[in-house]
C-alpha cells in the first residue's frame, strides 16, 4: 500500500514536470501552449526557477528513497519496472523544455532525407523559407553528430510524416526505446542487480536529459553497453561492430577502443571501471570543444551503475548529476547566456560534487 502511495506521488511529480515543460514551447513553434504556462515560464522567471529547483530536489529525494530501498532489497523488480514505465510513459509526452538539441536532430535529418543534401556541408539556415528556422536555435551549424546517428534518424524522421509536432514525439519515442534497451543492458551486465538498475534508470539527470529533452547520448551508450555485453560473451567481432556503431553516434566512445583491443588483459570489473573513468575524462575535457553539457554525464552514469560497490564513484555521480541539472538554473533565471550565467553554471556544476566528495572523505577518514 505504501509503495503504491509513493508511486502515485512520484507519478504526480512527473506529470507536473511534463505539464511544466509546455511553458517552454517557443512562441514560433506550431503548437499552441497554455498562456498561463507560457507567461509563467517567460515572465515570472524567479518563480519558474523556484519550481524547476523544486522538481530537481524532489526527484533527487525520490531517487535516494528508491536507491535506499534497492540497497535494502525492500523493492521488487516488478515495482522498479513499474516506476521506469511510468516515468517513460509520462515524460514521453513532455515537451523538450531544457534543450533545443532535438530540433537540431530533426533539422539534420530533414537536410539529409528531405532536401537530400550532405548535412556536414550544408546548414539548415541555407534553406530560405524552411519553417523550422523560426524556432531552431542552431540553424547555422553543420551536422554535429556522427554518420550512424544521422542514418538512424531516418526512422523517426519518416515516421513523423513531415509534421514537426509529430516528428518531435517520434524522435522522443525513438530515444525512449534506446533508454529502455540501455536499462535492460544495465540489468543484464550487472547480473540482475536491482541497485544498479535503479541507479541508472531512475537517475534524475538520465530521466530529464533523455526522456524530457530527448538527447541522443543514451543511444551512444546503448551501443557501448551492447559492445561490453558481447565482449563478455566472447563475441569479439560483433562487440567491435557495436563499439564502432556507438562511436558512429557521437564519437565520444572512441576512447574505449584501446580497452577493447587489450580487453584480454583486464577483468570484467576493471574494464568497466576504466571505461567509467575514461568517459569521465572525456566529459571533463568537453569544454575544449564547447562546454560541459549536463547530458554528457550519461556517459559516466551508464558505467558507474555497473560498479555499485565503488562508493567514491557513487558520490561523484550523485554530486555531478545534481550539479549538472542545476546548470539550467542561471539560464532559467536570467534568460541569457552571457553576464553571470557562465560563472554560475560552473559553480553549480562543481560545488555539489565538491560537497558530496568532501562528505565521502570525511566519512572515510572518521572511520
Amino acid at each position, binding site marked *: 500500500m505504501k509503495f503504491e502511495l509513493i508511486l502515485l506521488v512520484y507519478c504526480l511529480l512527473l506529470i507536473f514536470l511534463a505539464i511544466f515543460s509546455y511553458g517552454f514551447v517557443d512562441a514560433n513553434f506550431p503548437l499552441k501552449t497554455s498562456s498561463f504556462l507560457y507567461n509563467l515560464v517567460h515572465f515570472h522567471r524567479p518563480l519558474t526557477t523556484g519550481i524547476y529547483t523544486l522538481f530537481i530536489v524532489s526527484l533527487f529525494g525520490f531517487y535516494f528513497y528508491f536507491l535506499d530501498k534497492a540497497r535494502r532489497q525492500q523493492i521488487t523488480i516488478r515495482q522498479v519496472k513499474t516506476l521506469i514505465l511510468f516515468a517513460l510513459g509520462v515524460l514521453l509526452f513532455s515537451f523538450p523544455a531544457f534543450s533545443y538539441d532535438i530540433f537540431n536532430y530533426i533539422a539534420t535529418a530533414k537536410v539529409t532525407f528531405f*532536401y*537530400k*543534401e*550532405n548535412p556536414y*556541408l*550544408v546548414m539548415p539556415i*541555407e*534553406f*530560405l*523559407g524552411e519553417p523550422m528556422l523560426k524556432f531552431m536555435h542552431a540553424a547555422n551549424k553543420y551536422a554535429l553528430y556522427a554518420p550512424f546517428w544521422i542514418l538512424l534518424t531516418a526512422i523517426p524522421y519518416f515516421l513523423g510524416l513531415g509534421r514537426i509536432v509529430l516528428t518531435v514525439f517520434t524522435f522522443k519515442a525513438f530515444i525512449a526505446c534506446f533508454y529502455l534497451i540501455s536499462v535492460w543492458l544495465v540489468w543484464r551486465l550487472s547480473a540482475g542487480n536491482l541497485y544498479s538498475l535503479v541507479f541508472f534508470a531512475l537517475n534524475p539527470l538520465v530521466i530529464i536529459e533523455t526522456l524530457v529533452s530527448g538527447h541522443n547520448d543514451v543511444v551512444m551508450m546503448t551501443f557501448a553497453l551492447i559492445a561490453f555485453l558481447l565482449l563478455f560473451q566472447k563475441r569479439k567481432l560483433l562487440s567491435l561492430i557495436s563499439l564502432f556503431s556507438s562511436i558512429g553516434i557521437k564519437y565520444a566512445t572512441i576512447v574505449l577502443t584501446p580497452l577493447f583491443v587489450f580487453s584480454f588483459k583486464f577483468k570484467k570489473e576493471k574494464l568497466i571501471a576504466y571505461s567509467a573513468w575514461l568517459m569521465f575524462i572525456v566529459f571533463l575535457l568537453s569544454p575544449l570543444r564547447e562546454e560541459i553539457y549536463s547530458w554528457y554525464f550519461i556517459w559516466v552514469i551508464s558505467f558507474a551503475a555497473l560498479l555499485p560497490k565503488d562508493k567514491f564513484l557513487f558520490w561523484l555521480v550523485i554530486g555531478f548529476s545534481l550539479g549538472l541539472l542545476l546548470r539550467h538554473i542561471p539560464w532559467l533565471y536570467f534568460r541569457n547566456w552571457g553576464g553571470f550565467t557562465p560563472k554560475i553554471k560552473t559553480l553549480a556544476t562543481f560545488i555539489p560534487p565538491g560537497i558530496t566528495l568532501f562528505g565521502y572523505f570525511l566519512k572515510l577518514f572518521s572511520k
Partner: protein
Amino acid sequence: MLARKFKNFFLAVILISSPYVLPYPGLMPGNKLYPIKQVFDKVMEYWVFGSFARYKYELALADKKLVEAKTLFEYQQYLLAMKALSDSNVHFQKASKFLEQAEREGKNITQKEDIYKLAGKKHQEVLKNLEQILPETFIWQPEKKPAEELNLKSALEEAIRLREI
C-alpha cells in the same frame, strides 16, 4: 516594385566594389604534393552530394583554380596557368548547373544566386587585371617538344565572357 528596385540598386553598389573574397590557393601546380591535393579534390566529389553542396564545392574549386591561374600567370608559368584557368571555367559553369538543379528541386536559391553573381564579378575583376599585364600571345617552348602558341588574350576574354551573368 520599389523594394525590388532598391534591392537591384543595392546589389549594383555591392557589385561595383565586389566584396567577395577569393581563397588562399594552398598547394600550387609544380609542388610535389599537388597530385595528392588533386586526388583529395576528386575523392571529395563523392562525399559532396546534394545540389547546394555541389554548388558550393564547384564554386570553391572555381575560386581556388582562378587564384592558382592568377599566381601562375604572374610567375609567367603560362602553360600551367592556362590549364588552371580552364579548370576554373569548368567548375564555375558546373556551379551554375547545380544552382539550376537546386531551383528545379524547389529550393530557394536567391542567396546563393547573389553569391554566384558576386563571385563572377570578382573573377572578372581578377581576369581584367590580368588582361592589362599579360601579353596577347606567348610562344611556349618545352625542352623536348615542338613550340606551342598560347593565346592568352582570347583565353582571358573567354573566361570573362563565361562569368558575365
